[in-house]
């Protein structure tokens, strides 16, 4: 085939020799009509393109106009998809052509792009030649549809770079006047400018975001659908020792011993969900880790990001606190236990050697000792609650069994105060997810309060039942009750009602605060009715779905309340 290059630098024309492109004789009437149609097309194309975000879509729109105005067999586009970093090809067939025809079209287009596009865009020549075009139309095996007899190519530009090309081809001979080619070129240019403008806008947004992400102290790494790292900020490189891009996520994943990062990433992208790991480790440093799917403007997941937030100093503080708490509990409780046991031996029935004054004094020592034991126990737990770091780990359990086992430890206290516990359990209750440790703390606090704030010899009622979609625990006493003006404050920390402060000195004012904190966390509720001088009833509600689990740093220590 001969090649005629026109004055237009971007347009290549392939025509049969002798084709008199510029000598077509048309009537003025016809000419004006064509110009009008073309002008109208250009105008409406510009309007239509204002909603179009990528070149692929723009090409669809352009083709609609070409289809109307230009005679062709196949209009074929190869475009570099900037968002996804690869080439796409589409052939729109206005009439059937053979696959040999299309192969030739592709070959010529690929050669054109390889020649005119920048190396950075073309990347490996192999990937562009392997391209399989999407074909809209009918492919035939008729021999007569094999030959390209008229054609022209016009480039697609974004930001001064050639990012693709359109090839219009026909099995007919002698088509495509200069005017038609200019028109097609014009349409493509309009489409390119429109898309380029949007890209410039997106890039300016992107560069602002990138500057921000680069400078933050959290480590950020972004990757594509193939888990290939495309970006990592400085903090990430510092935390991981890995380069800024161009490696596979598996390498990053291997740095974590305690989590399977690849699994989390795949889950996050597959289900389009944000995954947060409160605590993980790379060598001796601790991080909070988040995996975020990144969706493109079409709403489909195009990759993701991993964010590492350094919590090493928080973990160190928490470890120091846990160690302190352990140490304090051990160091304080050893002498407290010695004082308790020796004073008890002094007061034991077999020991008649004490005068009544001596006995009274030793009893004071014992009472004070018990208060201190109580205080130590409460402080250990409040420190944990305050941080909000206790874990909720529900397992399927029988609420009555858990309640009974919690009560067991209160029996000596009830006996000491001559309080009878009356229990009423609904039969055949289904198991539900409960954190047994936390459930015990709730039951023990409420029942020990009921015992503590009842006069000797009274009764305490406890019931467990199911009412509709809730499990209900009621703890009722006929003790001192809570003064009405103070009922608002009973769940606040260190609150103790005036009427019992004088009667009972051993309360810490922490019990109900702890119970309320736990129930708020696990999805339960607590309410009460009380009348001073008549008693109090607490009602705990749990949903039948049980306690909500929560990952925490440590379980709450077993809380002792008496």
């Amino acid at each position, binding site marked *: 085939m001969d090649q005629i290059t026109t004055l237009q630098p971007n347009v290549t024309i392939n025509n049969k020799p002798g084709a008199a492109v510029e000598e077509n004789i048309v009537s003025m009437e016809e000419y004006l009509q064509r110009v009008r149609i073309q002008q109208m097309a250009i105008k409406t194309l510009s309007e239509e393109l204002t909603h179009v975000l990528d070149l692929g879509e723009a090409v669809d729109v352009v083709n609609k106009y070409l289809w109307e105005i230009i005679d062709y067999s196949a209009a074929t586009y190869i475009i570099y998809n900037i968002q996804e970093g690869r080439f796409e090809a589409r052939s729109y067939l206005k009439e059937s052509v053979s696959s040999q025809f299309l192969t030739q079209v592709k070959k010529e287009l690929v050669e054109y792009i390889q020649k005119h596009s920048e190396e950075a865009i073309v990347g490996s020549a192999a990937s562009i030649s392997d391209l399989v075009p999407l074909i809209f139309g009918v492919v035939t095996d008729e021999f007569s549809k094999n030959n390209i007899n008229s054609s022209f190519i016009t480039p697609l530009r974004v930001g001064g770079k050639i990012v693709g090309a359109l090839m219009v081809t026909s099995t007919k001979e002698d088509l495509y006047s200069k005017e038609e080619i200019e028109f097609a070129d014009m349409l493509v240019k309009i489409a390119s400018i429109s898309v380029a403008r949007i890209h410039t806008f997106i890039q300016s947004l992107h560069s602002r975001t990138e500057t921000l992400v680069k400078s933050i102290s959290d480590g950020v790494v972004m990757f594509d659908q193939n888990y290939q790292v495309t970006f990592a900020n400085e903090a990430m490189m510092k935390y991981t020792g890995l380069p800024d891009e161009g490696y596979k996520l598996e390498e990053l994943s291997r740095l974590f011993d305690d989590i399977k990062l690849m699994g989390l990433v795949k889950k996050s992208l597959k289900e389009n969900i944000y995954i947060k790991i409160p605590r993980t480790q790379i060598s001796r440093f601790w991080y909070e880790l988040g995996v975020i799917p990144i969706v493109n403007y079409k709403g489909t997941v195009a990759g993701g990001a991993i964010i590492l937030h350094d919590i090493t100093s928080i973990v160190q503080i928490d470890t120091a606190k846990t160690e302190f708490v*352990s140490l304090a*509990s*051990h160091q304080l*409780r*050893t002498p*407290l*236990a*010695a004082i*308790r*046991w*020796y004073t*008890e*031996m002094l007061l*034991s029935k077999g020991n008649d050697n004490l005068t009544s004054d001596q006995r009274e004094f030793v009893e004071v020592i014992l009472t004070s000792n018990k208060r201190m*034991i109580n205080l*130590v*126990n409460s402080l*250990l737990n409040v420190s944990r609650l305050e941080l909000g770091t206790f874990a909720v780990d529900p397992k399927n359990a029988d609420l009555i069994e858990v309640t009974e086992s919690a009560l067991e*430890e209160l029996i*000596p206290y009830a006996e000491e105060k001559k309080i009878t516990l009356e229990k009423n359990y609904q039969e055949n209750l289904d198991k539900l997810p409960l954190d047994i*440790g936390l459930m015990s703390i709730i039951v023990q606090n409420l029942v020990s309060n009921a015992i503590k704030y009842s006069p000797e010899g009274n009764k305490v009622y406890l019931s467990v039942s199911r009412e509709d979609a809730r499990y209900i625990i009621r703890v009722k006493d006929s003790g001192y009750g809570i003064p009405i003006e103070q009922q608002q404050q009973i769940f606040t920390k260190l609150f103790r009602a005036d009427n019992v402060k004088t009667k009972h000195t051993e309360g810490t004012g922490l019990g109900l605060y702890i119970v309320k904190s736990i129930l708020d966390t696990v999805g339960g509720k607590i309410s009460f009715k009380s009348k001073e001088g008549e008693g109090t009833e607490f009602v705990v509600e749990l949903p039948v779905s049980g306690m909500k689990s929560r990952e925490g740093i*440590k*379980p*709450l*220590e*077993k809380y*002792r309340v008496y």
Partner: protein
Amino acid sequence: MQDEKNKLLIVEDDEFLLNALERSFSEHGYDILKATDGEKGLSLALREHPDLILLDIVLPKMDGITMLKKLRKDSWGETAKVVMLSNLDRVDYQEASFENNASRYLVKTDWTLDQLTKKVLEVLSE
């Protein structure tokens, strides 16, 4: 003649607590063996085969949890009755104790000597 009395091993490093426990359990008619660290506790247990071991956790030389684990590797020690008696109520220690078949986990300050004795009697009769 075989000794009819129950033999009790107390592993506790605080002298005052150890003496109080010894005194209380002797009064209830137990033969008492004493050890003030985990290593001595383990060798005494394996030699004397006590009916029950009262075992502290924070101990010199070898801590109580380690001693318990080592005890469970012995053919006699595998089924020996052990009551943990500690000042620590950390859940991880409790779990480790129960995973190694401790019969009870008691916090010292929670109990009077009388109550402790009752608990131990309970375990002995199980």
